[in-house]
């Protein structure tokens, strides 16, 4: 009964919001190119519905800007369903905005109120330089991945079926959860140290936990951490901000696992 009342209340509330469009003030980081200085610009925006996604709201703004003959705001996006990790954005001081466990493309305008001011900035890190406006270069993640985030298998036609190797369920699960990292960079953006350890540890773990990945585990963790340091990411001080802001809920356990793997590999 309680449950029903609550749901009813929520439906009522959300339908209420749908009727009344929101008026917002957007403070958006505009930067012409990597070399320019850039700064915050303010845009009033009306006619926003609660059921729009955050990126749709930006689409509305951009259409207005294009109609006025101004440069649209450049932002990253691809799948718009929370699986590719392309969308980024620091929204009101948090990566992917105020909600938990979602990407920016999954954030909806019902998370905001009529009259709100929303500050939108690019992810900030030395290893994520701004390309234009809200778009940053995250190829540093790719270079970490290339340094060791793979397994070497013979694919010449006699590949063994992966399922023929028995793997304990909890280990397979832990590897799977680590592999759900979409490489979005929210962990770096949230971290006061701009540390990439949650990302790197997820990529180390997803392989190290499986027999196929164990073979190259030592070489992998040493090479990936070395690349991570080279890229200029900061050092983890275990604040835990990354785990809270990660859209996929990647656990700090992965960082501890990377710390163990690395220690073992470097004393060998």
């Amino acid at each position: 009964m309680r449950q029903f009342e609550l749901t009813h209340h929520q439906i009522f509330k959300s339908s209420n919001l749908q009727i009344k469009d929101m008026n917002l003030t957007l403070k958006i980081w505009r930067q012409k190119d990597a070399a320019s200085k850039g700064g915050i610009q303010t845009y009033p925006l009306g006619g926003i519905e609660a059921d729009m996604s955050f990126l749709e709201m930006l689409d509305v703004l951009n259409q207005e800007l294009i109609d006025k003959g101004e440069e649209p705001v450049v932002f990253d996006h691809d799948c718009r369903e929370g699986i590719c990790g392309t969308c980024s954005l620091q929204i009101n001081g948090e990566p992917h905005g105020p909600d938990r466990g979602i990407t920016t493309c999954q954030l909806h305008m019902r998370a905001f109120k009529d009259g709100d001011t929303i500050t939108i900035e690019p992810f900030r890190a030395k290893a994520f330089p701004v390309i234009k406006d809200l778009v940053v270069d995250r190829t540093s993640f790719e270079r970490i991945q290339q340094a060791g985030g793979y397994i070497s298998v013979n694919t010449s036609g006699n590949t063994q079926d992966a399922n023929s190797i028995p793997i304990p369920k909890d280990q397979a699960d832990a590897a799977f959860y680590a592999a759900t990292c979409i490489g979005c960079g929210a962990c770096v953006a949230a971290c006061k140290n701009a540390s990439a350890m949650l990302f790197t540890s997820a990529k180390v773990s997803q392989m190290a936990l499986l027999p196929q990945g164990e073979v190259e585990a030592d070489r992998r963790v040493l090479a990936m951490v070395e690349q991570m340091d080279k890229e200029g990411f900061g050092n983890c001080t275990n604040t835990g901000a990354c785990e809270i802001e990660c859209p996929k809920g990647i656990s700090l356990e992965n960082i501890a696992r990377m710390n163990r793997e690395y220690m073992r590999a470097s004393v060998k």
Partner: protein
Amino acid sequence: MAKSALLKSSLAKKYWMAFTGLFLCLFLVGHLAGNLQLLASGEGARDQFNEYALFMTSNPAVRILSIVTFASILFHVIDGIIITINNRKARPKGYVSFKPSTNSKWSSRNMGVLGTIILAFIVIHLINFWGEMKFGEWETRDESNIEAVHVMENGVAVVEMEEQDQTSNLIYTTESGAEVKDLYTITIKTFQDPEWGLIWAIIYLIAMIAIGFHLYHGFGSGFQSLGINHPKYNTFVRRVGVGFAIIVPLLFAIIPFYIYFVLDKI
């Protein structure tokens, strides 16, 4: 690669930070156990504390331990400064709006500031006691300072005291025959000083609050850095850490106030 990995990499810096930090936690326990003797009153308290201080400065095993402790503090501080500077460099351009309080605890974000307060305290504390013990002026004096006793005709004894230079510290022989430096009296006098005693106690209290917050994050964080993270034990480690961060600094902080307010004046 492996060799340099264990010294220079980001993870190696974490291991050293955690290892020295957790070692210093052990040191705190030992130091606290020694200091709690200051709460004792009565005849034997002074002898007991001074004999303990003598043991701590002369026993070879303790000497090695104290060198390791000093080295740990030095490593911990240098490593902490390097990490903090590197981490600032990792985000050269900051956010206009940044809300870290939504996703992390205050203490975890202010380890550098808390550490600096602790470092300042360590310096003051060493000057107060360790420096006095090591470099202060010490003099062996007869405790009673009695030069002569005259018995007058009416039977009253008049005791003539030797004029003594009271600025130097006292070396004396305890009941059990050990020749000790009287650190006990220096300590008690510091915290019973009518002008400065309470101010010292408050300075020590502030430092202990800083250590409390440092450890509130640091204790559990040290385990995580060393790779010790398991769902089975995490709750236990966290609880021990919080308990440690409250109880140890609290007991330390009580001592100066107890000496000022409760202990018999000397």
